[in-house]
């Protein structure tokens, strides 16, 4: 059922993305449904910004996330952002393009 709220931690340097969710192992993408609310929790000492790379409209999903704060605005997952072959919403840090993460879209 869509409308759930999820948190993804940004940890380490270079940063990795870790779903802060029961039952999801570190390194695994966050499973979420279309219409869920996602935020990123920056647990590092530097700023990051989330940029969606998959789907029809690559763009910044958040404002710059200052150190030790969470993202703004909240991101509501959209079908248009899904990679139709992998079923994922792929994102990376604008400032550090090597830092990549995924949201696995589920039903």
């Amino acid at each position, binding site marked *: *059922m869509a*409308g759930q709220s999820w948190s993804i931690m940004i940890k380490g340097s270079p940063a990795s993305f870790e779903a802060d969710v029961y039952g999801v192992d570190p390194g695994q993408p966050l499973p979420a449904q279309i219409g869920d609310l996602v935020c990123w929790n920056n647990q590092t000492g530097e700023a990051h910004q989330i940029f969606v790379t998959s789907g029809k409209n690559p763009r910044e999903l958040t404002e710059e996330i200052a150190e*030790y704060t*969470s993202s703004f*605005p909240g991101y509501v997952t959209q079908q248009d952002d899904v990679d139709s072959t992998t079923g994922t919403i792929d994102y990376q840090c604008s400032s550090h393009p090597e830092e990549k993460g995924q949201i696995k879209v589920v039903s």
Partner: protein
Amino acid sequence: MKKAPLLLFIALPLAAQTNSIPCGSNATGAPLPTIPEISAGSDGILNGTFYTVSEQVRMTTFPNGPGTTPVCYPQWVRAYRPDAPKSWNPPASELVDPTPGPTLRARVGQMVELTFLNSIDANKFPNADKGGCDETSSYPADAGDKYPDCFAGSVFTNVHYHGTHTSPSTTADNVFLNIKPSPRDPKKNNVPLVTAASVKPNFDKFFTDCEKQLKTATGPKIWPRKWKDLQPDLQKQLMDLVEKYGVKGWYEANQNLIENGEWPQYYVGAYPYCFKIPEYTDGTTSTESADVRTPHTHGAGAAEVDEAAAPSRPLLMGQAPGTHWYHAHKHGSTTINVLNGMTGAFIIEGSYDDDLNAYYGVNWTQKQPVMLIQQLGTGPSLLTGGGGGPGPDFSVNGRLRPVVTMAGNSVQMWRIVNSASRAGAFFVAPAANTLQWRQLAQDGVQFKPEIYGDDDISLNQSFLLASGNRADLLVKAPPYNSAQGATNTYDVYVYNTVDPSDRPPQKPTATKLTLVTVQVTADGPAMDFIPVDKAPTFPEFLSDITDEEITGTKILKFASSPVPPGPPPASVQTIDGKLFDGELGAVVELNRAEEWKIVNETYPPSTSNQISHPFHIHINPFQITEIFDPNAPLSVTPGKGTVATSTQKPKQGEPDKRKTITGTGTSFTKDFKIGDSIWINDPAGKVADAPGMVRSITSDTEMTVDVNAKGNLTGGTYQIVVPQYTIERATARPGQCVLNPADPQTWKPCTVTVPPQDRIWWDVFSIPSGHTFYGADATTKVNIPGYFKMRSRFVDYPGYFVLHCHILAHEDRGMMTVVEVAPLQTPYSHH
């Protein structure tokens, strides 16, 4: 040469991918849990630390609606807890079942001293520290909301002590407080900087001072009244935190408030709540007395301070002992906090308990179940682009359909609190030879013995607990039936409702929900409802408010109105045409009683279905004197045939919900009149959200209705809902009342709706929805509002507080206003 292994590509079916988790054995049908308590000690002080934390819970959702099998997700929520968490950074692998806030328990005359800590880990949630609306890619833009009337600051919070008669100011029931979570130290494992230990020295001194000021006071004394009443060290600690960690502008705003002699509004991490639960002791009960109407003040301004500091009169009212509650009430975050579960019961004991215990046994009332109804969820659906709907299913003490165990023939007292953020729970009267109940109290105020003993009011009656309402019920189990064995179970049913049109008789097909199940075990000692002559003595200060006491009247108009051209849920929620802006909506002189007409100008279908906004006012309870529901039904009967076809034929200028209904086996011209409602049951089993309204009748088998149903209605059965009110005198049926569309003086009930004496006290009451009446001439159209009239004594405590709709999303989005109770004197009263 080895051959490479043949790779076989087999099209395997994709495993069903979901992120739901098992709901666990506690979710549904588990024993009703007992909620942890913070109770007053032998020193007469309810003292404790109140932690607001973030935790990951097994959240239940209902893809197919309330009453269906839940689907669970791990969700981070905000929660009230009586103890420090095991870890300030609970790992993602930790999952708990939802649990309400601790039950607070104290007695009238006792002190409340709570160290409130906001230790929410704000980073678990989208950044809400911006000082504006919480934003997502769809909110607030799609809803059209603007700060401050939007979901905002979702991790900021406070506490409203709902049902308490105490000061609305400073450290008491002050809902203007805005408390930000403590900052965290990333260099020290992300622990909160503001802790119980860090504030304890200054808070303890404050509580000591507060006790000295209030504990022995018998009048309506308020302390602290001014910021300077706090010791300098506490002032400095609280303001330093705001200066260093508050939202930009908070510190300056606080300084301005202090300089103007007002109480600062913004805090970070911690706040000390201290107030006395007033105990009525004097014989003066009436606001009619000359002494009471001339409080010992010396004029405006500083004189108000004198009156509050050293009142020369006794309390006019005390705290009604009973079932009260508390919840988060920071404007903008109330909905999300309450949805997350930030609610709890506040049991205030007194002679009510003494009288019950004298009959049932020592401390009997303290052993009785407290049932906190919630609609648990992650966040308002508007935040993610959704809206409307009945909301989540009801949980009780964090569980769905929990089991209450009772010995056969025993009696329990259920203290029931509807702390849901949206829906009312309409309790269905128990069937014969099952449970029996007799209602003892409403909204924390006991019934007069005359009401308690009136079977038509209190015995086995259906009743509504709107969001915010409470009821104390004596519930008697039937004898254990050995032939039934384990099936000695009895469900307590409710309807999810915000309006009578959500339940029978207006909605014949509404789904009945099991709230709790009673499991009857072997018979115990036979018990019975306390006899009327031994029922709790009714407090003198809760006598009926008489005509002679009324010194003023007011009219307040609530309305959900469409935002052109926005469809629901983009309705705007207003009082007197205004969104909440912090300005005064009503001013009353202290120690006066007034009669207010509370009007509902919500007119469906322009704003979706009918909405009976639950009116709530803080600090003082009220009595209802008149109710006018223009949607009231006169009768509901099944139609004689079936709907054969339905054709959507919107003509120019007509709403697109208009359908032409034809039927077989029907007699539309005999059975229907213009303005009747018709419920059409989709043959596929789907039911419309709202009834259609008959707009024209062409023949026995064809008519036009405005109907909200989707899809093909062919083959559907129907019910005819005949309204009690009509505007067509010529075609009025027997029993119908005629309202003159040209004369608003006639827009009132045509029968007695409330008894003239022995009235019930409330602090939440649903305002009947408005109704659009159409004439048979196809041109007459008139909006007639619903309303109720209430009387309240605005006594003892001056100050500012709020009234609002208790559908909390409406409150957050603007349906709230400020009430000032002012100890004003004319210039000629100086002496």
